[in-house]
């Protein structure tokens, strides 16, 4: 199978694309973020295109390694009739970027659009708060060959968008997914609103189409709707009924031109794309690829890492953040951003560990207590009585005492019962209230028996 995607995501701006209304449409009561322009009242004309939206679209195009169209770009009117579209047409720009690449998948083009309002048939209203919010549409080549590939592409794309700071997240995503299986025609699926939805739709569609083929039924070229609640697709229309949108250049908006200076300016200020960051982390911090990928999986996490390594050994910090921090975040279903864990806390924890003021085990317990905890790691450690590794002679004393008091266990060990060593370690731990390093203790016991 082959699959291509058309992904719409809202751009991150304070005001709408062609007026000054606010873009917090979800928080605002229905039909309060509106004006004659985004309502398309008779006679209202678009304000000049929101510059922040253009800048964000340009930045995302560059982060997805697109070429930038330096000719005149402009908005077209795409006409169709739907309750949520107060003008009867949607403004959609010609491509800003083209021929990009992400995860080995070609990006055909990237352009801007305005979001329509929200038709809420259940409440019998159209909420125009969303009308005119800037969108970016990213069109890929049909170069994903399994539902899993499509899913990982989308995850990576959302990560790039999140990194860019110029677009909103998966929550505002709407995707059209097209699929063609050898021997059948291209089928397009609409109304997909999440990465999971895209994955499920592809899974369903493969089964449906293969079943048709098995029965010798032709897979027709058509558009289908994805029903999120049931995770199935249903037919919408055949190719012959395709809409004619009667595209014309918008007479109300003058053409725009992206200059080399504009591009240079955006390139200078735009964040590093995650795949480039992975490369740099491996090279400059001498860490392995897996760690680099985990550390760059979230922009805030990557930023934190780069702060931490100013004071902590990069390899040590990478190991702790990849293993222990991730474990805790996953367990609590938190992103780093939302975890309440801050750079200074991690530096304090890692310093305690590196200075051997606490044991690894103690470190693990402390980090488990760190999410959304106002206490510092040191305070947590003190509260849990985890501060301090028992000094070497203290441990040696405990080891000696253990050996002396447990001759039976020593004998068993000497007779080949390795498990009795665990018992001895446990005894040492008990004497030191868990503060001895288990590895070190094993070594000391072995040394002292002989």
């Amino acid at each position: 199978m082959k699959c291509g995607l058309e992904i719409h995501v809202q751009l991150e701006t304070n005001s709408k694309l062609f007026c000054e209304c606010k873009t917090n449409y979800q928080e605002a009561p229905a039909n309060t973020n509106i004006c004659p322009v985004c309502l398309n009242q008779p006679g209202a004309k678009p304000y000049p295109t929101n510059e922040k939206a253009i800048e964000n679209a340009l930045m995302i195009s560059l982060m997805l390694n697109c070429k930038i169209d330096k000719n005149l770009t402009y908005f077209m009117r795409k006409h169709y009739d739907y309750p949520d579209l107060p003008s009867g047409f949607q403004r959609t720009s010609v491509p800003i970027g083209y021929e990009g690449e992400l995860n080995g998948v070609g990006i055909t083009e990237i352009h801007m659009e305005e979001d329509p309002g929200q038709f809420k048939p259940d409440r019998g209203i159209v909420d125009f708060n969303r009308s005119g919010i800037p969108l970016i549409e990213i069109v890929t080549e049909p170069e994903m060959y399994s539902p899993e590939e499509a899913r990982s592409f989308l995850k990576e794309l959302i990560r790039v968008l999140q990194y860019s700071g110029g677009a909103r997240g998966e929550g505002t995503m709407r995707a059209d997914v097209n699929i063609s299986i050898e021997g059948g025609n291209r089928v397009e699926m609409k109304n997909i609103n999440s990465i999971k939805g895209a994955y499920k739709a592809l899974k369903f569609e493969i089964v449906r189409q293969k079943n048709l083929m098995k029965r010798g039924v032709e897979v027709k070229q058509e558009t289908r709707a994805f029903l999120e609640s049931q995770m199935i697709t249903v037919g919408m229309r055949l190719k012959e009924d395709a809409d004619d949108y009667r595209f014309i250049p918008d007479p109300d908006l003058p053409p725009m031109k992206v200059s080399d200076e504009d591009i240079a300016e955006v390139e200078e200020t735009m964040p590093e794309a995650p795949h480039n960051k992975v490369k740099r982390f491996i090279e400059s911090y001498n860490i392995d690829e897996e760690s680099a990928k985990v550390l760059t999986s979230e922009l805030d996490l990557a930023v934190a890492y780069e702060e931490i390594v100013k004071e902590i050994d990069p390899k040590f910090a990478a190991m702790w953040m990849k293993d222990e921090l991730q474990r805790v975040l996953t367990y609590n279903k938190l992103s780093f951003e939302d975890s309440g864990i801050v750079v200074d806390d991690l530096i304090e924890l890692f310093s305690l560990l590196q200075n051997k003021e606490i044991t690894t085990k103690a470190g693990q317990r402390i980090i488990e207590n760190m999410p959304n905890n106002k206490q510092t790691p040191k305070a947590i450690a003190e509260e849990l009585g985890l501060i301090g590794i028992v000094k070497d002679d203290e441990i040696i004393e405990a080891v000696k005492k253990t050996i002396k008091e447990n001759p039976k266990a020593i004998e068993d060990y000497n007779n080949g019962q390795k498990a009795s060593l665990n018992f001895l370690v446990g005894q040492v731990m008990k004497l030191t209230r868990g503060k001895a390093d288990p590895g070190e203790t094993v070594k000391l016991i072995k040394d002292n028996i002989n």
Partner: protein
Amino acid sequence: MNIFEKSQAIKNQELKAKDNLDNFLRTIDNTNDSINAFLEINKEDAINKAETLDKKIQNKEKVGSLAGLVFSIKANINVEDFIISAASKTLENYKGSYNATVIDKILKEDGIILGITNMDEFAAGSSSETSYYGITDNPAAPGRIPGGSSGGSAATIAGDMCDISLGSDTGGSIRNPASHCGIMGFKPTYGAVSRQGLIDLSMSLDQIGPMAKDVTGLSMALDTIVAHDPSECSSIDYKKPNFTQTALNAKNSESPFEGMTIAVCDEFRSITDDKINKIVDKKINELSSLGAEVIDFCFHYIDLCLPTYYLINYVEFFSATRKFDGRKFGHRIEDVCGDEVFRRIEMGSYISQKEFSGKYYKHALKARSLIKDEINAMLKGLDFIMSSTVPKLPHKIGEKLDPMEMYAYDVLTVIANLSGIPAASMKAGEVDGIPVGLQIQANSLEDEKIIHALSALEEI
């Protein structure tokens, strides 16, 4: 007393704003029922405003430059709380939900907005016969059409119902009725006046402009409404002249046309009625005697103008009317509109189909730049192009014209819209008692020069 002198009289307490208004109200009471120029007036607010202004003037408070002057507004320009129907059943229930930029500017200068004028439905016409609210009569030639589409506006001026009217001009809709009603009408350079709030006919051609009995009325309105509007993308930012000062200076000039060159075209004359040519030629010859040099020019694309104009108009109008889908304003436009509006929507829908993309609309845009280049080349080093405004006299109300005959009214006026240049019409004389207009076109952004010419000609 011209309009500038009147505004001075009001400010000097020689004339009360209230009395000026009352004069108009009396005329409206007596004649509007038969002329059908105003669709709606708001007497009470206008009287309140006039009385407030008179008090302010009495108390030596500062008032705006248009204080006490009475305006009528074409029914396709948004004014809060008036029905802005564009003379269509489609919008019979639409109350202006905001003020167009030009309206805010007039109110800021203390102009009194008295009411809303009749027009061709959605400005798609040249006779004001296609209004859902009935035909407007021509006060200057009763029983004949007033021209259009701003026919109601022209009639409020010609019929002494107000001082100044705002119309809109897409292919002659200000100049054509100004010509037929024997008044002055001005279409500014495209972008000089904000279109924010003007209901679309053809967005790349539409322009708001003033109509009045004399040039000071035009120039005072222009001083107010010509301004850069950052909320409208086609609005241009340029150092605007003082139009009123220009108009007044021209009147005092000894030889206002000294050193000026005027182009006339045989192509324009050959499609114009002889009787009209005679009047217009006479006017242009007078200019010659005032020092102007008159040069013959060829305009090669006269046959291209109407097809180009109408193709662009159809497509843009189709697009602009998609919002009238019946959901927000009660009627779906196709269900309730008249024949001409329906024809334009159908044609626009037809020629913008994907299969014709590149065939009609793109050709029209190409033809448009040819026409624009030719006009700009002609105007290079020249001051004016002059001709008749309309090639024939207004027909009698009730006479049936086929669409092509109707379109032919526009042949001389569409050129200015296609090329974005400023153009005006003033009365040149009469044929059998019917007014005939002289059209003056100038280079882009040389609106001031046209005001100078109108003012000088007015003195002859």
